[in-house]
Structures are given as C-alpha cells and as structure tokens.
C-alpha cells in the first residue's frame, strides 16, 4: 500500500465479504424451496428469500466496486484520497441502507419491482451515497492533477451508473412503461456502464500484474468501450420482447444484442494476450487467476449464454424460464463478482499484515471450488431450464407438473451450489485471517509496474 488512505478499501471489502456470504445463505434457501414442501412457507416464503438474495448481490457488488475504486484511484493519481472521513461516512450510510433494506424485506417492506425493490427512502440514501462517493473521487483526482485513461473510464462508468439509477426513482402509471424504464437501469448497468467499470479494473490489474504497456492497454480499453456501447445500448431491446412495446424492437434487439459478445470476447483476448505477451512475473499469481478467470467466465456466462437466448425466435420459448436464471448467474458471477474478488485478492497482501503475495493454498482452493461450483450451478439451471422449456412451453404441460419432472436438476443445483458456497466460505475465511494494516508500507513505495520480466 503506497498511500495510507487506501486502507479504507479494507473496510469496504470486509462489508462486501459479509454480505456475499449472506447472499449465498438466501440463495441456498431459495433453491431448497424449489424442491419443497416448504416448512417455512408462512415464515420465510420464497419471494422473501429470493428478493434478499438478489438485493444482497447488488449491494455487495457495488460495495466492492466502491472499495476497489478507493483502492485504485490513489494508485493511479499518485495521491492520498481527498477525504478518508467522507469515505467512512459513506460506507456507514451505505451499509445501514443495505442492512435495513434487507430487514425490511423480511417484513415485505419493498416496492416489489424486480431488482429495484428498495423502498424510496432507501433509494434516496443510495443516491446520496453515490454523490458523496463521486465527489470524493472527483476531488482526489482534481487535487492530484494526474488523470489516467483507466481512471477516466472507471469514473465515467461510475457517474453513468448513478445517472442511470434516476429512472428507478420515478413512478409509472403504466406497467409496460415501468418495464421499459426498469431496463434503462438494469440492462444499461450490466451490459453498459458496469462493463466500463469492469474494463477499467481489468486494465489496472493487467498493467500491474503482467507489466503490459500502459499505452497499448489503454488504447484497447477504448476499443472495448466502443464495442460495449455500439451493441449494448440498442441491445437493451432484447428486454423489450413480449412486454407490450412496438414490434420493431424485436429485430433491433436480435441484431444488436448478438453483437454484445464481441466486447466480451475482446476483454478475454485482452486479458489473455496481455498475460502471454508480457510474460507475467508479478508474484501475486492468485490475483492473476481471478483477473483472467473473470474475463473468461464473463465471456462464457454473459457472451455465450447470453447469445444463447437473445434472438427473438429463441427467446419466445425461453423467456421467463430457468434458462434466464442460468445466464443471470454465470454472467453476474463472471463479470462482476469475479472482478471484485480479483481486486480484493490483488490488494489484500498490501492491506493486511503477514500475508504472502503469492496467495495461499487456501486461496487457490477458494478459486477452483468457486469456479467449478458456479459452472455446475450453471449446468443445473441449464438442464432444468431446458426441461422446463420443452415440457411446459413446447409440449404444453402445466407449470406445476413440469416442475415436478425436473426435481433432479434442483438436487444438482443444491449440490453444486454447496460446493460453490464452500469456495466462498474459504475465501471469506482467508480474507479475515490476517489483521488489517493502516499505514503505508515502505517496500511498496515503488513506481509501477512492480514486475520483473521473465525471460
């Protein structure tokens, strides 16, 4: 850690870890309810466990983004953060918002609008937190006078995320119109501006871990951003199938969202070739696993499995089935969970006392268990979803009867989900094993890149 103020990242990461763990508890509970019968039917029904599962996901990933940004900006701009105090106030407010929203959901206090269930007061606190955050980052960069392209992409991604949250604050009389604007937030986040955030973290990590040339990396970062938006903005239309909007969104959605994997393929090639070309020699090879893993898993989960159901002719049959859950899990995990975990693993040796740069055996177990567990979950959702599409949508079997026929895939989901959860448990344990460090360390005061070239 070169700058003392970077230590705020530790607490953001710590909160993210706890919420990540909780998210899985509610995921496993939800999956168990697929099997049924449900002894908790009147205490903790599926709708409650599911809304908590997805909301915890969003909250912890955003917490991770914020922590990772507070870690990265001082490194890039070569300065202390503008205000450490503000960063802590923001974290406290944010955590209170998240925790009270979750408690509220236990009592069905929410707006019942998928993924945007937060009640209005909570949404307002979210906006306040975002403003504090952006102010703090902006002032840091302004003070330092050093503004890199990587930072620029990250910052625009963060500002746009805040702007795109705006439609979620409005009230819509017409349900179809509310669906239309819900996707301005959700889709344009995950397939637009969050990809800028991911791309920026990726560039930051690759430059440091592989010693790749900054000039080249940043040029390709622009190209990736261009690809993301050419396809991603009009690709929003793949959520405008079958919801009561004009017909022309069908071909537009099919065409442009089919281009979306290009940006993801770009990122995977970017990561892989940076690693190959520069002959990595940074000691933290565990962080490199997570970095390259994220780019590849995102290509699989978002690119490939997104493409699998993005054409209207296919989506007509798969829309609203477990096929969507298959893609949602693999995509979210690969692109956003893994990139946050990569930033954490990269920063952790510098944020804690006594941890080796190379990463421990435990750390590798956590990586491989998670990756294989999530792959298994994706297959379970996929096989369950295919069964559902065939029996219910094509053969016309009743929903409830079709669900009974695919029980075995739910067993598989729980088994692989448990494997995944074990991987996460190891990761969390490894995270909290060493005590945090609050002072800038001597040996880290070097200039980038901190790599020795391997010949």
């Amino acid at each position, binding site marked *: 850690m070169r700058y003392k103020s970077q230590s705020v990242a530790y607490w953001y990461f710590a909160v993210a870890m706890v919420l990540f763990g909780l998210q899985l508890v509610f995921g496993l509970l939800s999956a168990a309810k697929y099997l*049924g*019968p449900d002894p908790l039917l009147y205490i903790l029904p599926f709708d409650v466990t599911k809304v908590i599962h997805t909301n915890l996901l969003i909250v912890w990933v955003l917490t991770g983004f914020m922590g990772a940004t507070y870690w990265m900006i001082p490194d890039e701009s070569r300065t202390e953060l503008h205000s450490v105090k503000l960063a802590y106030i923001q974290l406290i407010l944010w955590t209170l918002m998240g925790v009270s929203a979750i408690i509220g959901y236990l009592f069905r206090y929410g707006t019942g609008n998928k993924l945007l269930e937060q009640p209005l007061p909570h949404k307002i606190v979210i906006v306040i937190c975002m403003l504090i955050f952006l102010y703090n980052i902006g002032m840091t960069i302004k003070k330092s006078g050093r503004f890199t392209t990587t930072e620029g992409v990250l910052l625009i991604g963060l500002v746009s995320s805040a702007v795109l949250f705006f439609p979620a604050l409005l009230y819509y009389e*017409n*349900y179809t119109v509310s669906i239309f604007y819900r996707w301005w937030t959700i889709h344009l986040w995950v397939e637009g501006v969050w990809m800028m955030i991911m791309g920026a973290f990726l560039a930051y990590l690759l430059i440091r871990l592989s010693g790749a040339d900054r000039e080249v990396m940043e040029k390709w970062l622009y*190209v990736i951003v261009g690809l993301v938006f*050419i396809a991603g903005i009009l690709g929003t239309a793949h959520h405008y199938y079958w919801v*009561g909007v004009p017909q022309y969104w069908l071909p537009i959605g099919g065409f442009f969202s089919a281009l979306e994997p290009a940006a993801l393929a770009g990122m995977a090639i970017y990561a892989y070739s940076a690693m190959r070309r520069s002959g990595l020699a940074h000691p933290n090879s565990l962080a490199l696993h997570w970095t390259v893993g994220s780019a590849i898993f995102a290509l699989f989960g978002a690119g490939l499995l997104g493409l699998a159901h993005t054409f209207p002719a296919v989506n007509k049959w798969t829309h609203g089935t477990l096929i969507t859950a298959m893609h949602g899990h693999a995509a979210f995990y690969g692109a956003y969970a893994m990139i946050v975990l990569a930033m954490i693993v990269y920063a952790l040796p510098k944020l804690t006392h006594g941890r080796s740069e190379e990463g421990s055996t435990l750390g590798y177990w956590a990586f491989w268990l998670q990756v294989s567990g999530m792959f298994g979950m994706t297959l379970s959702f996929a096989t369950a979803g295919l069964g559902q599409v065939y029996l219910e949508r094509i053969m016309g*079997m009743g*929903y409830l009867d079709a669900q009974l026929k695919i029980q075995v895939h739910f067993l598989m989901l729980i088994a692989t989900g448990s494997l995944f959860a074990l991987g996460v448990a190891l990761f969390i344990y490894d995270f909290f094993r060493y005590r945090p460090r609050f002072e800038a360390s001597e040996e880290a005061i070097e200039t980038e890149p901190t790599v020795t070239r391997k010949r």
Partner: protein
Amino acid sequence: MTNRQARIFAVASTLIAALIFLVLTLDSHRQFGELTNAENITPEVTRGKDVWHKYNCINCHTLFGEGAYYAPDLTKITQHRGEAYLKAYMRDPSQFYDEQKHRRLMPTQDLSEQEISDLIKFLDWVANVDNQGWPPRPIMVTGAAVSSAFVADTTRDIEDIPGVADDTTPVTEADDPRAKGEYLYRTISPACTACHSTHPGADMAGPTLAGLATRAQAIITSADYQGEAEDVEGYIRESIVAPSAYLVPGSMYSAGGTSFMPQGYDESLTQEQIDQLVAYLATLK
C-alpha cells in the same frame, strides 16, 4: 490505430447508438397508449398494480415473462381462469392445490376483498396488452398435455397432440363434428384443457371430464338436479353456456352458487361450435 482514433471510435459509437435509442424511445411513447390500451388503465387497475407490487408477487411469479421462476407465468391468467375462480383462489390457495402433491403451494396472502378485485382487474388489463402474441402457446398452471391416452392412440399423428403445433391443418367442415369438437376443446379461448383433463381421476382446476356422459346421465336423473336439461347432450350444452345451472360438489369448483368455470362461452362461441363441442364431449363415456 492510434490512441486518439480509438477514443474517437469509443465516443462516436456511443453517441450514435444513444441517439438512435432515444429517437426510438420517443416513438415508442407515441405507441404505448394504443399497444397497452392505456385508456383501460382505470383507478382499479392502478390499485391492482399497487397490490401486485405490495405483496411482492413478482418474486415468485412472472408477468410478461419477467419476475421469478418459482411459480407460473400470469400474463394471460384471466383468459384461462374466470373471475369467480381467481377470487376464491386468492382467498385461500390451499383449497386448490395440495403441497404434498405439487411440493409447492402459494401462501395465503390475506388480501382484502377490494384488493382481490382490483388485482384481478389489473391482471385482466395485462392479459389484453398487445405483446406480440407471447406466449406462443398457452402456459398452463397444471395438467399433463401429452396424456398417455393421446400417445396410446396410434390413429392420431403427432401434430394432433395439444400444444405440438399451431400450424397443424385444422380439422375441416367436412369432418365429423366430434373431431371438430375435440379440436375446439383444445383451441378455443379459454381452452377447455386449461382446466379439464380427460383422464379418470385427474381433476385439475375443473373436474376431469373422463366418463362425463355416464355421469351426466346420473346427474340429470338425480333428485337434486335443478337444471333444465333432459338428456346428456342437453346437460353438456347447459354446462358450457350456463355453468352455474348445476354445481359439481367441492369448494374448489364453486362458491356462493356460482361456478368458477369462465362465463361467456355462450357469446364467444357460435351455435355450431357449441354443437361440435357437445358432440365430442358426449363421447366421453
């Protein structure tokens, strides 16, 4: 490519895509009213939408295919189930489904009568939104479409199995009215198959129609039959056009003297179609 060119590419492609997107958004607003029948969004419908949100329905069900996958899609539910049925169901789902059998049950939501009726108005508005004909085939709540009876019957080819293809050649006028009736049984809206099976013992939202003709004979000759039918055909016709004339016993089939079977077939079907349906159903001995 230089760094500068790469940046121009990123900015230009973003701006162009955003511009097209905004123009199409404006055009969509021009069309929302007509596509969604916005004039039918009455205060009841709006309150019903609030009920939908307040009780977090979307985190088990889907509407327009969006939501969660723990419970069936409800986009067209008011076309499959009558209002009386939906009201009774909302009061107590456990009267209708057995958790031991299906392993899932909707918990009772404790809605007020007002909330229930608003909710149904909302769902009915949803069912009439022009959403490009989705779902391509009706999504049923219960029932096994490919019954073993169909599979065992080798005189029928695969296209005749319900739900296998919309584009099968419909049975023509020249055909036996019973065959035509069987086609109607699966294809009219709401389809009879949404609630009835023809399997012995397989009661769904409505009682099984296996052995209907035999049962009808027993009913019309029994003492508590108050309807007007005098023969089996008459009874079946009456069940279609005036479902409440005779109530099959069971709290999942009727309440307060009103059958849960959808009303309105007497208006949506022609006289000839009803004849054909009756001819088919009278074969179920």
